[in-house]
Every structure is written in C-alpha cells, then in structure tokens.
C-alpha cells in the first residue's frame, strides 16, 4: 500500500513539475483517470456500514443551512475540519470531522422507504423477478474474509426487509445479530443447563445422527451432522468471545453508550479487530420524522452523535481507521420545508448526505453541494450506485467484474456507478 501512495505522490509531483516546466500534462486526461482508477483505493480491509433507517434529514445533521428559515431555529457549529459546519445537534461528531468526507450531493429517484433502502444496499432498483445481493455479500464473495472462523458478513440489528445475499448463495448472506448485547444468538447454554448435561445430550444426538447418516447417503444428512459438531465447537471456541462486548472496559462501553446502536457499533469494532470483512449496524432510531421535527430530533440525535463519534475516535486511537472504512448511509433526505401542518419533514430523495471516513478517504472534506436551502443538488451529483462503487473501490473490488444470477443475468457490484475518486487521498 505504501508503494502505491508513493507512486501517486511521485506522479502528482511529476505532473506538477511537467505542467510548470513544459506547460503540458504528462498524461492525457482520460489515461490519467484510468490510471487513477486502477491505483486508487483498496485500503479498506473492513467496512462498517452505519444505516440510518427511515431517511435521516440532511439539513438537521451534516448539511446545515446557517441562517435559513428551513433550519427551524437550529444553529450550525464549526468542527475540527476547517470550514466545515454541521448541525449543533452533533457536538461530538464536530470533533471528528477531520476524519470524515461528507458527500452532500447524494441524489436518488426512490422516495419510498423499501425501494430506497433496497437501492442503497444493492445498487439496483427493486424488481419482483430477482433479488440482488447486498454490498456485504459482494465483498465476501469477491474478497473473502481475513478470519476463517467467523462469517465475513455480519448484520447488527438489521431490518426484516434486508436483501441479504439476494441471488447469491446463502452462505454469503449476513449473519444477523439480533441483540448486540446478547452476542451470537443461541450460542450460550440456556439457563440451568450444565456443561455436563450438554455433553451427555450431544453425545446422544451424535450417536443417533451417525446411525441416520449410515442409512442416508444424501449429502445434507452428513452436512447436518457436521454443522452440529461445528456448532458445539463454536460454543466453546475463543472466537465466540469477540461477540461479547461485556469484555470491554467500562469506560469504552460508556463511551459508545448502552443503547442498541452504541452496543452494535462497539461490537462492530471488535469484529473489525477480528478481521471480519463487512459489518452493517442499523441504528435503532426511526428517522422517518413526519411529525414535530425539532422535538423528535432533539430526542433521538444525542445517542447517535455519541456513538458515531465514539466509533471514529476509538478506531483512530487503535490505529484501525487507516484500514477500516466507516460509512453512514440512509435511503433519502428530508424536505427542507418544515410542514406547517405536522411540524415534520417529508421524504426527499432529491438531495441528501452520506459520509465516509477512514481507509484512505480524505478527512475534513466535503464533496458536492446542495443548493442554498438543501432542496436539490447544486454541484457534483452522486448516486447511491456511485457511492457504493466508491466503497467497493476502497475495498479493492473490481467494479467491472461480472457475476451471473442463476438465470444467467449479468450484474456488477455497483451497477453502472462510478467511484467518486476525489474522495480518496
């Protein structure tokens, strides 16, 4: 990775030098882009994909419009990144903005929750004839995972509607963690069951299973005997401890917070340390704020601000941010106008904000712009496909690689999305 960095720096130097001395570009523009596409990215060993369910308001979070009536009286504050302001509701994230690339020109055509959520996760439009895989399934399919024991794709507090592995095999589907405080579901002995009971019972079940397998050449019979052995081994394995966030010291637990999202992000960091490729954490808040925008947001924002900031800070302190890409995504933004009837904001796919941090993304950087009241894209529109292509590029996935569905239809990781190369350092 270092050598690539050096190469890019050297080329940048040579380009400047050539321009200054000879008045020409060293490379034709198109070739430069192609070279950049090949060389840029690939630093994200892991991705933490934070999903804000319901469509989080951009104006009330990371794309404030200071002084405009659309703010509803909420102020913007300065941050650790020069010239970057965010909503006063995010004081802790304000101290982390030097790690973050904001994409304030996200835009989509999907204004219905499930369709927007589907597009954000798969880069394809929802259709009734096929289910496309989510980005995490692509990642484990094409890159594998550094940890050979743990699943490479984990979904914490996920919605029932998650597209999971779509048409790809189910072993690529994210392993759901329903309650991040409780660890891997069903991996602990139930109350009042002793180790000795368990040992005796599994011995019985294995004896029965062996007999069944002897009579049954069908491969699934043997496979079920095998997964039973795997499960029993997993229950005793060291690897299971990664799911136990109570092993963290009290200060760390308090920093992330004891709410679901806080526990989920702490677990995500532990999974990153164990080499898990792709972890999605869904915020437990529902950001679909149709009513009473200001009061509802004031109620929900503090825990989310706390957790996001704690995650970035913690990853940075541990030296993991350089190899971990953290993304905040949502299905759409919300209308700039606060309704005079409900005092809330409606769905608004026209423009909204995602952010990316770590793994070679620029820090303290803002890409694209919404117009003065946050109603539409003013500069450099970025689609969800583009942003997912950027994430894929950061992981080192070949964006042109084709996978076929079982019926023979060809698909790529981010459809026709183009990576936002300006985000990379």
């Amino acid at each position, binding site marked *: 990775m270092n050598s690539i960095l050096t190469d890019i720096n050297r080329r940048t130097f040579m380009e400047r030098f050539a321009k200054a001395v000879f008045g020409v570009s060293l490379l034709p523009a198109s070739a430069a882009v192609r070279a950049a596409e090949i060389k840029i990215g690939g630093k994200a060993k892991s991705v933490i994909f934070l999903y804000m369910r319901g469509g989080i308001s951009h104006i009330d979070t990371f794309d404030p419009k200071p002084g405009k009536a659309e703010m509803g009286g909420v102020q913007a504050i300065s941050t650790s990144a020069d010239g970057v302001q965010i909503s006063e509701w995010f004081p802790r994230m304000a101290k982390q903005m030097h790690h973050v690339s904001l994409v304030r020109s996200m835009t989509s055509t999907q204004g219905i929750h499930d369709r927007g959520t589907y597009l954000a996760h798969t880069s394809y439009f929802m*259709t009734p004839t096929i289910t496309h895989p989510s980005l995490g399934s692509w990642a484990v399919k094409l890159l594998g995972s550094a940890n050979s024991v743990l699943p490479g794709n984990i979904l914490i507090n996920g919605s029932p509607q998650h597209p999971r592995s779509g048409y790809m095999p189910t072993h690529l589907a994210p392993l759901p963690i329903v309650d991040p405080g409780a660890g891997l579901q069903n991996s602990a*002995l139930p109350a009042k069951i002793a180790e000795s009971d368990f040992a005796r019972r599994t011995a019985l079940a294995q004896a029965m299973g062996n007999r069944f397998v002897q*009579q049954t050449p069908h491969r*699934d019979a043997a496979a079920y005997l095998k997964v039973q052995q795997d*499960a029993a081994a997993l229950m005793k394995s060291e690897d299971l401890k990664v799911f136990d966030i109570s092993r963290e010291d009290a200060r760390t637990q308090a920093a992330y917070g004891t709410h679901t999202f806080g526990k989920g992000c702490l677990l995500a960091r532990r999974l990153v340390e164990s080499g898990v490729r792709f972890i999605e954490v869904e915020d437990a808040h529902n950001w679909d704020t149709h009513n009473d925008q200001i009061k509802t947001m004031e109620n929900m924002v503090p825990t989310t601000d706390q957790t996001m900031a704690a995650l970035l800070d913690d990853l940075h302190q541990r030296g993991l941010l350089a190899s971990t890409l953290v993304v905040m995504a949502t299905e759409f933004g919300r209308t700039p106008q606060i309704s005079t009837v409900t005092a809330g904001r409606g769905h608004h796919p026209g423009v909204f904000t995602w952010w990316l941090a770590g793994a070679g993304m620029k820090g303290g950087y803002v890409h694209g712009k919404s117009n003065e009241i946050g109603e539409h894209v003013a500069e450099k529109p970025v689609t969800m496909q583009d942003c997912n292509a950027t994430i894929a590029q950061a992981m080192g996935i070949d964006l042109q690689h084709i996978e076929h569905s079982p019926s023979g239809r060809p698909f790529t990781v981010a459809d026709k999305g183009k990576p936002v190369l300006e985000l990379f350092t």
Partner: protein
Amino acid sequence: MTSKPPFSAPLGIGIAMLSCAGQLVRAADSPRFEKDILPVFYHHCFGCHSEKQAKPKGKLRLDTAEGIRGSEVIVAGKPEDSELMKRVSLPHTDEDVMPPLKGGAQPLSDAERATLRQWIADGAKMDSWVKFDHRGAALPAGDASLARADVRQLSAEVQKLVDRSHAAKGTKLNAPASDETFLRRVYFDVVGRIPSLHESARFLGSKDADKRAKLIDELLGSEGYVSHMFNWKADLLRVNTRGLAAGQPGKLYDDWVKDAIRSHMPYDEFVRQLVTSSGHLWENGAVGFYVRDLGMPLDHMSNMTRIFLGTRIECAQCHDHPLEPITQKDFYQMVAFTFGVSNLGSPGGYSPDNVKQYPEIKEKMATMPKDKALGDSVSGTIAPLKRLTVDTDKQLKFPETYAYDTALRGKSVVPRTLFGDEVTASESERRKAFAEWMTSPRNPRFAKNIANRLWKRVMGAGLIEPVDSLSALPNPEHAELMDFLTQTIIRLRFDERAFMAVLLNTRLYQSEAVRETPEPAVAFALRGPQLRRLSAEQIWDSHLVLLAKDIDERKTTFRLEGVFDPQRLKKLTAMTADEIIAQARINLAERTRGRELSLRRIEQAKAVAAAKARGDEKEVKRLTAVHAKQNKEFLGSDMKAMGSEADGESATKETDPRWKSLPPSFIRASETPLPLPLGHFLRQFGQSDRREIDAFNRDPNTTHSLALMNGDLTTRALAEDSFLRRQLAASKAVGEQRTQLIYRAILVRSASAEELAEMAALTKDSPTPEQDIIWALLNSPEFLFNQ
C-alpha cells in the same frame, strides 16, 4: 455452508442445458432427430434461424425439414464438410462461432457437438418430422370428467404407467413403506407437520385394511391442509402480509388465498379469479395479485407466466431470449393483455382517478377557505382508495429502444398469446379473454404445469425439471405419465385435493424413499419419493405439535385496525365527498392528538430513564404505571384506533386454555404475518422472504444447530408444562416403554433394540434422562428430513 441440493436450487437455464446434455450422452450411439437434435437447435439456433424472425439470419431456417434439407450447411453423411459443424466447433473467441456468444447465448457442450456430428454422419435423418410447431398444439378435448370416487382407479392407472416404465428399463420400485414411515410422510406432505401422539396411535392401532386411503382423505379435508397448502401457494405468489404495499391492508390477500383453499375452489377458478380480479383489497382480496406488483407490469407478466404456465420469459423483457425462441416482441404481446390494469400501467400504481369522489372533493375544497392542514388530511384520508384495481384504456407501447424493428418503436402493442390458441378480444375484455386462454383445458401448459408442480410437492422431484422449463419441445422422459397426469387433473376439474389423493394412494408414493442426493441432470427414477430436508415451516409447525394441543386450530391474534380496518375502509369507499371531508377533519384531530401523545411519551421516557440511572427501580415502576394511566385518559375511548394509527394492527390476549401458556406468536407458520424479523427460527431455517418466487432455501447451517440445541423451541419442549412432557407425565409407561413413547412423539417411529440399549447406557447416570432423550431426538438430523 454446503452447496444447494439441486431440487431447491434456483431453477435456471444452466440446469436445463445440462439435462439436454445428459440425455444426449446416453443417446450418443444413435441420435434421433426429435429427441436428441431438436433440443439442441431449439436452445442454440432457433432464436435466429426459425420462423420467430421475420427474416431468419442468413436465410437459414432450422425449424423445418425443408429448411434443413435445402440448406448447404449440413452435408448428410459428412460432418467434416458441414458448415454447421464447423461453425459450432470454433473456439468461443472466434467471431464466426455459432451461436454468436454476445447477449448470453451459450456455446454447444462437447456432448451436444458429438451428438450432432454423429447424427450428420448417420445421414442427418429426420424420419417423418416436417416442422417444429412453435406454438404447440392446443390440447384435444379430453374424456368425461371424474370425481373423488374415481381416485382409486386413477391411482391404479398411474401405478400401471410407473410399473411399465420399470419393466421397460429393467428397474424396480423401492420396498413398500411401513405404516410408521407412511404416517410421518403423509402428515408432512398433506398437513405440513408431524402427527400428535394421539393421531399416531389412532392410525397405527387401526386394523382397517383401508386405513391409509382413509387417512389421506381425512387429512386432505383438514384445516392443517389449508395451512400447508397456503405456505406453498404463498411462496409462488409471493404473498407478503406487511410488504404488499404501503398503506394497504395486505393481510386481506393472505386471507383470500386461505379462504380459496379452505372452500375447495378449483385451481383453474383460483387462477381465473386472480387474473381477472378488480376492486379494492377490502372488496376482493384477490386484487392483491396486482397490488403486489404495483407499477411493474412487465415483471408481473414474467412471474405469472412462470408460476401458472411453467415458462420463464423474463429474459425477453429487454431482448430476444438467448436460449429459447422467445422474442422481446412475444413478451410485449403477452404484457399487453394486463397492461391496462390501473395498478400496473400507472407509474407507482397510484392515481387520484381511482377515487370516484375526487372531482367533487376538489370542487368543494376550492370553494372553502384555504386550509392546508385539512387539505393534507383529505389527501391522507383518500390515499388507500387510490390503489384500485380496474381496467383502463392505457396502451402498452414498444419501447423507444426496441432494436428488432425500428418501425415499431413507440407503437401500441397488440396482445397475442405466446403459445396454444390465438385470442382476440376487445380492449375491455382483454383480461377476461387472457384468463380464459390461460386456464382453458386446451392450454398446452396450464394443466401440465400444476400437475407437474403438485407431483413434485408430493414426490420431491418433478417429472419435468426445472418445473418452470415447459416448452413446445416434445418431452421424451416420462411423457406418457406426464400426459396422463395432465389429463387427470383436467378431468378432475382441477380439484387439487382429488389429484393429490391420486398420487398419495399410489404404490410409488407408499414406497421407501430414495435416500441418495439427486443428480442434477438425471430424470426422476420413479423408485419412491425423494428424501429431502423439511421446509422451515414444517420444522416450526412440528415443534409446535410438541408444545400445545390442536395447533392447527390456533389462529393469529393479528388484527387489521384503525386505518386498516376493512369495515372502516368499506365505509370510506362508499362515502360522499362531504362525508370524506368530514372524516378528514376527524382524522386531522386524531393525528394532532397522536402527535401530542408521541411528545408526551418522549418526556415520560426521559423521566423513566432518569429514575433508572439513579437505580430507583421503585420509581421506575411507579412512573410506568402513572404514564400508562395518563395516556389512557388522554386518549379516552378512541384509544384503540389511535394506538394503531401507526401500523394499523394489534394483538389481543389468548383466552383459550389450550394455548394459554404459549405466546401469541407460537402459531402455525401460515398464520404468522410476514416478514418476520431476522433471527426468527423460521428465517434461520430458510423461510422465503417472498421477494421472489420460491425464494426459500434448505441449506444446512451452523445457526440451525445452535437454535435446535439452545433455542427457545427446544427449551419449551423440555419444560414441564410442554404438551409432550404433560403427556409423558400422564402416561403409566415405564422404562423402555417411555423411551418408545418419546420416539413415537418426535420421530414418529419406534426405537430399535440397539437404540434402546444405547439410550439406556448413555443416560444411565443422568439426573434428567427423559429430557436428554427428547433433546437428542430434536437434535438428530433425522428430525429434519422427510423420508
């Protein structure tokens, strides 16, 4: 973590190709044109070289004997001089290779090439074959109709065909299945769960020589049949209670499908009612068929053709099908039959035109002082009415990107059926005519599709695989049996129960299972039913049999309320413009109060959290009670409607003593509103999320074992108050007899002497021998298989 068994694999072209190749290998010594060569031409050549193109490429037609003989590309007896042989043998990188590999066409396999070469070498004979009939002949009018009384005779006739096949091949049926094996199997296949101890004892104890036939009839008439059949149909129709459409009471579609099954609606009538459905969901639940695919008429037709006609046409949505002679034009002509349906043709399927009161409301609102709040509330009030399924005169046009005939771009598409009879109908009658064509006994694929699918449901593998690969090609393997089954279901007037009874009463069904993994390219061998993993629903439902009595009778407590209340929606539909405006005022007031309640709840939650942080549990309790009381008073008598405004559903408490100790969610899978949360037992075991047709999976996974070892269902089965433990407690059986009882309850068989000894030895020093055995049987792989 292992690869999928082929019968649950997403059914794809890959398998279809393999099955051709598989047949070819066996026939390689002396290829026959219709059986061996025609399928190769069909899948690789007809797309360009047949009547499906107005101008066949290179003026070459391979779909008529005349075309083949007259061409110069085949030199009979001389494969080396045949241009056709040369071109299909080029490396795939050569630009002259046939078929051209752009656009998804597949090169010939080595086996296919070898067969083709041999056929040419043998003189390229076509026997009496004249031409390929792309549309396939309509089925002739069949013999007189039959009834349930004829089932036994029909079973014997099916068995005769099976026996004849074995005689011809020198193979034979598996040994007859024991009563125990039959009992467990027939419960799984008909009612979707294991029998209770009581049900087992009744059957096994009976001396009636006719007891199997009687049990089949009893089960087919039971509520358990409705439950199990619903799961099967719901996976095909992608019935998704909460995921149907935003703001619509999706459960009414679930209910319609269940009622249709319960009321013995014949299958052809079932399909006709779905295809021709009109109205709102609360007037006719069948419109869920269209509401499910709002604004997606092309996909809707793809799915319908796949599930009702066993034919996959979705490739032709964007371009001519690369592997079958189905053109994009064919596809559009099919869609034209249903495109006018309001829910499909309008983008998003949402139109104010669908609300008959709308013009008058608009007029009235214009005369009133401007009131945005009321205006918004009116919009919200009439929103559910906008999703009306009704025929419109909206025309399907060829897309501007249509590549095959630029003159057609933007022109209206005239509907035309893909195969079988031609249909002409006026615009307003299009759907009706289409449904008649589809469900007619003359349709070459309608009855065949359902006969093959029901066969697969019972036997574990279709006579034709994949089940959605029906085509105009003749089907040599099991053709006679398939045709007989097709005629049988037609003659039984599409009575699915009677048809299933025919299959279940055969000696074939009542044989030992085939215990090997099925090979992908090999046809079903007719030796016995295929052993297979149970569906997620069968596993869940079987656990419930151990937890509570009469589980088939327990229904969901999930109710449609508030804005989803069907009675309220019916009233709304019939309201005048004035009444709707008045209702909108009420709704506005309700919403305002709802907002206030939400804000109160935020403050209340803060107070509780503060008390919790202080560790003052007493105060937490007190506050919780106070808040509940305050909120109830605030809402007054409207509370029910108010509380449900967000999701329009609620659950009531269980009052039936049989199920009191079980949470309301412990109901048969068919009663559970979808989608279930991730991590639910049913989802872990691969229940379909109903996004796609048959999107279930049955792959073994470590989380299955964790759930069965440590999960809630097993813990409950072991608990003293489980139905199973209570039955054991009430039993006087001792020692080995008790072990036998547990085997009977869980695995529906008796334990062998060897097993009894093993169980006794391993539980000798156990404080909980009975629970140990229950646990072990629930965790035995055997429990998870239908055998």
